[in-house]
């Protein structure tokens, strides 16, 4: 979230698209209701199904799964055509005026630089024209046809309301009505918030879905303001923390990149991370990258990380592929390239696509270690549970170690919520049985591994042997100690460069990442968390709900990264002169000498408005990007590509149907179905009553939603002779699910490219362990392909067939 | 059992046992039913071990009543068939209540009043039974809709009241017509009793139109 849960109440329009906030985030959804009641907000829902969010919406429109970019590109076209954009904002705070290189082009569905063999782009043409000093050239008059805004206009020209309707199946009048509602927030004192979740990320074009809406928000001047923003509603209580702390295979804590095998030295690595400003005088905060990396290395390796060994750069793993995501991991298991798997707090047999492939992969392992508070399906993959898990135990040689762990209520620690708040929580109960904390288990594995390496040597023991482990209790480090390590401390007396006086004594906890150094005198395990646990104490444990102006900032409740900022890019809430766009809901403003307000400025606190420093301080040009440069895999502008399994051709460019930059393994491609055999569009989702595959283990949740089902529209059900609550078989090329049918008015056939298109909804929650009734699991059906940037699997749009059937054998 | 030499058997052992089972059931049902009917009579439920027991036992006694009363129907339906004499009897009801039976046409085995009791119960007991089934929560609570149950409970209570009134009449008549009770306890009446209340029946007996065992051999 750029903003906070509470801040949603300041919105004038709430658009829920690519998510189902009421069902998946019922507690946070109270702020949407608050916005409606206290701020007269309009709630708009765009979803393939009429969801529980839609049930309280002011306006609902259906959309075919996987066509959000077409819809939103149509919105951009509408905004530009009707000139319903916030001009001053767009001119001052976005890269609309910057001129794009001449080599950049878009033709027949492909951007310039495409390599058909590698399914990837040479992105060198996706950039600005630079002047002699290396600054991007700008045309504030927008006369130059190559300036971003004109290229964008040209790019979205194809997305007429007719075309949007033809692709998305959304009736034109509904689409235009929503355009009007969105456009109403172009006024400087109006804001729209975009609430989204896996409905956007779980597509082969997931990142671009979000990007398209971010562009809409930039054009409307809705980023950085109260009640605005791009608000990703995180599904797991700590999934924000997972990404923050770098648990993705290509990242390190604080969104630092893991080196690639081409970056053979620290200097080589840093060359691509200099972040020289692209416009004069810009902050380009990533210029401090080196400080963050060196401080991280000092946290990891302590005294062993020195100037001489390049801060232990060689001990970091180097990627030979863009990332080792889960889809790749299971591909490797299936190929016999990965033979051991420590599965911590994860249930891939339920959670990852193409369940059959997951089961086959697990079956080829030498060992599987599961660490989980629950008896997961993954840890029982080898056991025959009937048609829901037809494993042949005798043929599986995988040795499975099931390690029970404590859950969040049985340990101290912090969780990072969607609004980037680190909230400390306290242990409420002892773990049951032999459950131990993840920290204890990981420490144990570490100590034993290190001992083995110490005794037996090994190919490259240095990273393990040199890891610093100076905890009071090395067997089970205290969560507070770990938090302090992430916050960081001074390793030597830090002097103020201006006065030369000692500003921070050696050994003290840092107040924030501004104090980090690249000379090895500071350590911080996660630079963005710096400030969470200072000499003043555990900031995450703060519980002062005082809320100045009652605008949902509550600055003394817990602690938000970065630097306790609640609304990112909040400099953009004020006009170039520093006056709030919306005087009724100011966030920060310039008082003549400094930036003041209810939030911590996301900006130099004394940088004058006249200095022309852009509000998007992390970006090298200081501006919000309508043109993404080389940061996206499939293009600097979003483009509609069909899901990998789609019932129709891409009417915009039949030759390039789906995401050209998507990575698809050959066996996965062979497992894609065609609309001939699998004529219906399916989408998977969650229900309020359950959390993923966990709560089916809890009796009350199992009572509230006991049994697997799919949702099917009345028209298709009638065509197929399917009765309300009757048994159906839903099949894709990868497998089948036999479950009950919910015949509903809430899914209607969509007219896509002139033909009726039926959507089938597949809730995901049931498996074969736990208290609820046994189910096949939605991932039996889903295709193994991910977003081209993140490899998040395409769970939201694929093809199935559906037939009436009988109950499966017990 | 000591009975006079000239006794006439009015009710056989089977008749009597059957009647008294019915009577006991009826009384129990009345007591338990009334306790659930009107708050001022809820104390009656204590006779059955409290409200829960009363509620639980009442329908089972009802089943016993139906079975038992079916026995009475089988035994007595023929002699309660309505006859044109009954109309004459009804017309002279004023003499009946004033004990002036000499002005009442001769009565067969049962008079019209007795027949009315019989047929009333024959009608009311099945009505009570079936309406009772509908509101027998434990087993049939879900078998019918609530509106149906509401009607059933109304019918059940009205039928019960009617039955109780009939029963009151029946009991009083038994007390009023002296030695009737003995007929149902010891089974016999005297020739004089038969002469006074059921003269036509006596004549039929005398004419041997009934079972020989009804009248003891004259000494």
């Amino acid at each position: 979230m750029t903003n906070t849960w509470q801040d949603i109440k300041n919105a004038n329009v709430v658009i829920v698209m690519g998510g189902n906030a009421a069902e998946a985030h019922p507690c946070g959804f109270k702020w949407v209701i608050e916005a409606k009641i206290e701020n007269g907000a309009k709630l708009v829902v765009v979803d393939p199904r009429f969801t529980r969010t839609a049930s309280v919406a002011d306006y609902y429109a259906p959309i075919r799964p996987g066509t959000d970019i077409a819809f939103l590109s149509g919105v951009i076209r509408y905004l530009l055509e009707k000139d319903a954009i916030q001009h001053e904002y767009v001119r001052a705070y976005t890269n609309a005026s910057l001129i794009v290189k001449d080599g950049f082009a878009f033709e027949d569905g492909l951007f310039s630089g495409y390599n058909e063999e590698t399914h990837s782009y040479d992105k060198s043409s996706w950039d600005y024209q630079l002047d002699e000093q290396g600054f991007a050239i700008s045309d504030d008059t927008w006369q130059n046809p190559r300036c971003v805004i004109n290229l964008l206009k040209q790019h979205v020209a194809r997305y007429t309301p007719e075309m949007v309707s033809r692709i998305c199946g959304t009736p034109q009048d509904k689409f235009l009505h929503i355009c009007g509602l969105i456009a109403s927030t172009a006024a400087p004192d109006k804001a729209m918030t975009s609430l989204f979740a896996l409905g956007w990320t779980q597509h082969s074009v997931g990142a671009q879905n979000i990007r398209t809406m971010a562009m809409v928000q930039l054009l409307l001047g809705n980023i950085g303001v109260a009640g605005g923003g791009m608000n990703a509603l995180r599904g797991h209580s700590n999934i924000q923390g997972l990404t923050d702390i770098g648990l993705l295979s290509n990242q390190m804590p604080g969104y630092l990149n893991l080196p690639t095998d081409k970056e053979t030295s620290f200097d080589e690595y840093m060359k691509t991370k200099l972040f020289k400003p692209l416009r004069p005088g810009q902050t380009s905060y990533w210029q401090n990258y080196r400080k963050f990396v060196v401080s991280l290395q000092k946290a990891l390796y302590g005294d062993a990380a020195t100037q001489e060994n390049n801060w232990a750069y060689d001990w970091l793993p180097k990627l030979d592929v863009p990332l080792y995501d889960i889809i790749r991991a299971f591909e490797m298991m299936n190929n016999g390239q990965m033979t051991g798997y420590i599965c911590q707090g994860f249930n891939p047999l339920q959670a990852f696509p193409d369940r059959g492939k997951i089961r086959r992969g697990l079956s080829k392992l030498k060992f599987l270690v599961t660490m989980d508070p629950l008896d997961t399906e993954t840890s029982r993959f080898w056991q025959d549970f009937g048609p829901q898990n037809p494993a042949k135990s005798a043929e599986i040689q995988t040795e499975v170690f099931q390690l029970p762990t404590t859950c969040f209520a049985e340990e101290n620690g912090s969780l990072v919520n969607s609004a980037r708040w680190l909230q400390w929580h306290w242990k409420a109960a002892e773990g049951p049985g032999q459950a131990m904390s993840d920290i204890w288990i990981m420490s144990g594995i570490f100590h034993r591994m290190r001992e083995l390496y110490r005794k037996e040597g090994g190919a490259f023991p240095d990273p393990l042997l040199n890891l610093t482990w100076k905890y009071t209790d090395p067997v089970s480090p205290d969560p507070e100690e770990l938090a302090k390590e992430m916050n960081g401390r001074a390793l030597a007396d830090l002097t103020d460069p201006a006065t030369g006086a000692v500003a921070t004594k050696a050994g003290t906890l840092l107040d924030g990442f501004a104090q980090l150094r690249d000379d090895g005198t500071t350590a911080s395990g996660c630079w963005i968390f710096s400030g969470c646990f200072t000499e003043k104490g555990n900031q995450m444990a703060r519980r002062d709900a005082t809320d100045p102006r009652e605008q949902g900032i509550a600055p003394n409740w817990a602690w938000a990264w970065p630097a306790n900022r609640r609304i990112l890019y909040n400099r953009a809430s004020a006009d170039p002169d520093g006056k709030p766009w919306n005087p009724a809901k100011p966030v920060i403003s310039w008082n003549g000498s400094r930036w003041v307000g209810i939030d911590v400025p996301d900006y130099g606190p004394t940088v004058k408005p006249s200095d022309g420093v852009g509000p998007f301080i992390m970006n090298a040009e200081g501006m919000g990007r309508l043109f993404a440069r080389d940061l996206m895999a499939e293009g600097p502008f979003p483009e509609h590509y069909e899901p990998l399994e789609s019932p129709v051709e891409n009417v915009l460019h039949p030759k390039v149907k789906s995401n050209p930059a998507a990575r698809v393994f050959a066996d996965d491609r062979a497992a894609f179905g065609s609309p001939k055999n699998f004529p219906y569009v399916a989408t998977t989702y969650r229900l309020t009553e359950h959390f993923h595959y966990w709560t089916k283990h809890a009796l009350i949740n199992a009572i509230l939603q006991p049994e697997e089902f799919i949702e099917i529209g009345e028209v298709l059900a009638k065509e197929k002779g399917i009765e309300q609550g009757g048994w159906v078989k839903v099949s894709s090329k990868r497998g089948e699910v036999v479950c009950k049918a919910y015949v509903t008015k809430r899914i209607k056939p969509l007219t896509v490219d002139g033909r009726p298109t039926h959507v089938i909804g597949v809730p995901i929650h049931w498996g074969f362990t736990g208290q609820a009734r046994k189910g096949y699991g939605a991932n039996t059906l889903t295709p193994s392909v991910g977003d081209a940037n993140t490899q998040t699997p395409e769970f939201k749009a694929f093809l199935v067939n559906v037939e009436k059937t009988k109950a499966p054998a017990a | 059992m000591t009975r006079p030499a000239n006794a006439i058997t009015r009710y056989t052992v089977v008749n009597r046992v059957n009647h008294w089972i019915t009577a006991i059931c009826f009384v129990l049902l009345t007591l338990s039913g009334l306790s659930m009917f009107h708050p001022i009579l809820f104390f009656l439920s204590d006779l059955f071990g409290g409200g829960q027991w009363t509620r639980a036992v009442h329908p089972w006694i009802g089943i016993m009543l139906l079975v038992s009363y079916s026995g009475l129907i089988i035994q007595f339906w023929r002699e309660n068939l309505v006859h044109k004499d009954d109309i004459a009897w009804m017309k002279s009801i004023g003499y009946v209540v004033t004990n002036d039976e000499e002005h009442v046409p001769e009565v067969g085995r049962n008079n019209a009043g007795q027949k009315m009791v019989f047929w009333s119960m024959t009608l009311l007991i099945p009505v009570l039974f079936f309406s009772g089934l509908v509101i027998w929560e434990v087993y049939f609570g879900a078998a019918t809709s609530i509106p149906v149950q509401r009607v059933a409970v109304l019918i059940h209570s009205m039928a019960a009241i009617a039955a109780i009134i009939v029963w009151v009449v029946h009991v009083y008549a038994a007390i009023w017509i002296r030695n009737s009770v003995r007929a149902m306890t010891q089974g016999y009446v005297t020739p004089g009793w038969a002469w006074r209340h059921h003269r036509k029946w006596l004549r039929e007996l005398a004419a041997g139109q009934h079972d020989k065992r009804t009248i003891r051999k004259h000494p």
Partner: protein
Amino acid sequence: MSDLQSQDYVRRSASTMTPPAARSHEDQVAKLIDVSRCIGCKACQSACMEWNNLRPEIGYFEGSYENPADLGPSVWTLMKFAEYENEQGNLEWLIRKDGCMHCEDPGCLKACPAPGAIVQYANGIVDFISDKCIGCGYCVKGCPFDIPRISKQDHKSYKCTLCSDRVAVGLEPACVKACPTGAIMFGSKTDMKDWAGERIEELKSRGFDKAGLYDPPEVGGTHVMYVLHHADKPSLYSGLPDKPRISPVVGAWKGIIKPLAVIGIAFAALAGFFHAITIGPNEVTDEDEVEGERVLHEAESEKSP
């Protein structure tokens, strides 16, 4: 659930005595369910199960999000989902939390034959006192909203208590506390009506011309009220009765029939009594015996050879 607050009763089932009325100064409470804010998340259902320690059986999928399938002895509240296509052809998913309405004039209490098994507190809450319940199911018949359910295990009737145990110590009902969107509010009935008024205005401003409060006067008003977008058609919300009233059949059964019965039975008994003391018994006379014997003799002798 408890009988310890007897001084707070204003009504008591099957009782011939008037409850103590000294404590008259108590606010009437009400729960206000604003269906326009409800997202059908069932947090209220789980909170109800948690607080009241209710755990119904794990059921089956039965063609809707409604689970368990019905109210039950251990299901005191249930989200009901109705798919409704309005006049404009747009879908509305009308989600309503079902449960006891706590009528001001409770049909269950009226129908109950067990003294004190159903009571109404001065604050308006209608409560079942389990130890007095006899399990007859009359409350089921008395209720205009189809709420009470009889347990097959213990043969007692159960329904929402409006968390009378929590309310008694100044807490809000569990469902109210758990509701994430503030769709369930609790307070004095006056306050709730005022708040409902604001909500209705707001709904009207959003085009729900028929928005209104559901507080049916036919049962004297209820202590659980709804804000409905379509207050003109409550039955759209999974059969919420348009005009709930205690059935006239129940009214007759619990009303006129009772005195009629007493009168009828008493009349019959009294008639007998007065007959006995005025006209007296009908006894067999000696002449009767002679006549009787005579008839038998004659017959005997006719038959004798």
